[in-house]
């Protein structure tokens, strides 16, 4: 274990050091709070840093250890939590002005499980408003910078969580993935992001964007760290009717014993070619060769319906969001505008939503309202639901032949802040490869696979597994990570410029 800078340790190393009494949880937490104080002015990964709360949690962990009580596997490890999960007593905004200043009276199940696992929550991370976006430029509180190049996006919507990892502000983070919002930020920041099987991690207390797609999941700097976090947050929750009541796959064991020897891996034919950055494809093709060298059989697989995934997603997600965001009505919590005694409740609602929502949210609410309108419902929403069936069938056919599928995580590396800000269709393309898994509900991961030669920015390899076979992601991800780290001589993130 490196003795120098605690913030460079992995979560596994940190937990081991805390458990062995080589360092206290308070020392670990303070080191990360110091790091945040030093660099977050540039990165803007956090919307709220709960220094007092984090140190109190850390003191409690140290007290438990001193008393000889059993500690969780991630005891004393700091974590950055996406601001879309409710946290009792700590502001939760979902990146929106409409919830500015709101302090939830309860914890999300995920938040509670983190606390029960003795994880130290450092604060809440920046995100695209209500998780709508691919760049974290839609946050009402300003964009986050990519630690590899602060003038570029850190991905979205969980850009704050990914940037916190890449800037060594936290060894663990939590994201949510509705169309790729964990994997895409992971890819463009050189970190690991996992979208667990839909229903594997409770959505109770997760502020809903698109309920049939949203999935919380782990973000980390290593595959093993992601697995440890996955195990801490996954599992059945009676408070979420869509939570799967089945054992969590052995993800930690898979991450510790990563191997692709004898596996059959499918390359999705439809992900590649026009619109893909040459350097991204170059690194992806090298990953394919690496997997062959490691003993996998790699075959091409065709999933023809995937080309319709993006349009289907941009009908289904806005439709669900137009319904979910109806709760922001200015009456129960958050902002209220225009309540001067002269206006009706309906007028106050409309004025509040106009003032409180940003342009991307308004665009999606109206798109969803349009798609669900009488006369258009069958052509838009109904057809999109049929595409969802066809995509699931493509996955089923593919997984009858191969163990996992692979593709680039994103078509390009991180683009400059502002480049696609007023071009929604160009922005939506960032999630081209990640969306099919959300529509079908299966599991997927992004692991770093090198830097694109033309801009020296990180490229992600996406691994997709069938539902409830999340352990396969970790087997493949760990094998790829180990082989690449040996080849490069160090983890990819060490090539990032100093902040």
């Amino acid at each position, binding site marked *: 274990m490196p003795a120098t800078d605690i913030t460079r340790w992995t979560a596994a190393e940190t937990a081991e050091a805390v458990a062995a009494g080589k360092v206290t949880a308070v020392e670990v937490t303070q080191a990360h709070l110091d790091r945040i104080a030093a660099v977050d002015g540039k990165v803007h990964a956090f919307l709220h840093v709960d220094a007092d709360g984090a140190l109190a949690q850390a003191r409690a962990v140290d007290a438990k250890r001193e008393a000889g009580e059993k500690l969780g596997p991630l005891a004393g490890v700091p974590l950055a939590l996406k601001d879309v999960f409710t946290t009792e007593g700590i502001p939760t905004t979902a990146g929106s002005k409409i919830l500015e200043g709101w302090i939830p009276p309860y914890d999300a199940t995920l938040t509670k499980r983190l606390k029960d696992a003795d994880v130290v929550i450092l604060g809440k991370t920046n995100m695209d408003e209500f998780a709508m976006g691919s760049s974290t430029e839609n946050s009402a509180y300003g964009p986050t910078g990519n630690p590899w190049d602060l003038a570029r996006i850190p991905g979205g919507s969980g850009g704050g969580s990914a940037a916190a990892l890449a800037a060594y502000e936290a060894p663990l983070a939590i994201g949510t993935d509705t169309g790729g919002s964990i994997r895409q930020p992971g890819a463009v920041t050189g970190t690991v992001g996992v979208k667990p099987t839909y229903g594997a991690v409770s959505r109770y207390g997760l502020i809903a964007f698109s309920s049939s797609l949203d999935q919380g999941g782990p973000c980390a700097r290593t595959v093993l760290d992601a697995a440890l976090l996955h195990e801490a947050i996954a599992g059945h929750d009676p408070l979420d009717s869509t939570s799967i009541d089945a054992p969590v796959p052995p993800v930690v064991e898979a991450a510790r014993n990563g191997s692709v020897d004898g596996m059959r891996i499918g390359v999705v034919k439809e992900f590649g070619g026009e619109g893909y950055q040459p350097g991204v494809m170059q690194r992806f093709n090298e990953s394919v060769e690496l997997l062959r060298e490691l003993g996998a059989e790699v075959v091409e697989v065709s999933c023809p319906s995937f080309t319709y995934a993006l349009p289907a997603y941009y009908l289904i997600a806005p439709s669900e969001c137009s319904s979910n965001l109806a709760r922001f009505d200015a009456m129960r919590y958050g902002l209220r505008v225009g309540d001067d005694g002269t206006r009706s409740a309906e007028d106050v609602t409309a004025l509040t939503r106009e003032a409180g929502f940003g342009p991307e949210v308004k665009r999606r609410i109206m798109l969803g309202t349009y798609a669900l309108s009488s006369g258009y419902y069958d052509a838009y929403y109904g057809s*999109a639901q049929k595409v969802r069936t066809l995509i699931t069938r493509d996955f089923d056919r593919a997984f009858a032949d191969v163990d996992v599928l692979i593709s680039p995580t994103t078509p390009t590396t991180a683009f400059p802040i502002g480049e696609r800000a007023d071009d929604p269709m160009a922005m939506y393309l960032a999630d081209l490869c990640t969306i099919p898994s959300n529509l079908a509900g299966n599991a997927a991961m992004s692991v770093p696979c090198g830097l694109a030669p033309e801009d020296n920015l990180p490229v992600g390899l996406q691994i997709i597994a069938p539902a409830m076979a999340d352990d396969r992601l970790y087997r493949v991800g760990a094998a790829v990570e180990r082989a690449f780290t040996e080849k490069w001589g160090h983890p990819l993130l060490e090539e990032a410029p100093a902040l």
Partner: protein
Amino acid sequence: MPGITREEVAHLARLSRLELKSEELDHFADQLNDIVDAVARVSEIAAEDVPPTSHPLPLTNVWRKDEVRPSLTPQQALSGAPAQEEERFRVPQILGED
């Protein structure tokens, strides 16, 4: 597929409870037109014999015993309300004075 006009955006905004500003109407009309043009492709492969999927999991009702359990206190439940009165959410008037 029909295009989305400025007037239609105004109608959608009303349905969505959004008091859009005048300049937003043109801006959103252009953008929504582009998006709707792009997403209309879904109908190309949506044959009649394909069943729709609304959710990745088979959803079933979840029942719990009808028994009293701890929950938020009225003060906690009201803690995020923009305005409150007599332990209730205070909302603007709904009916006019007439």
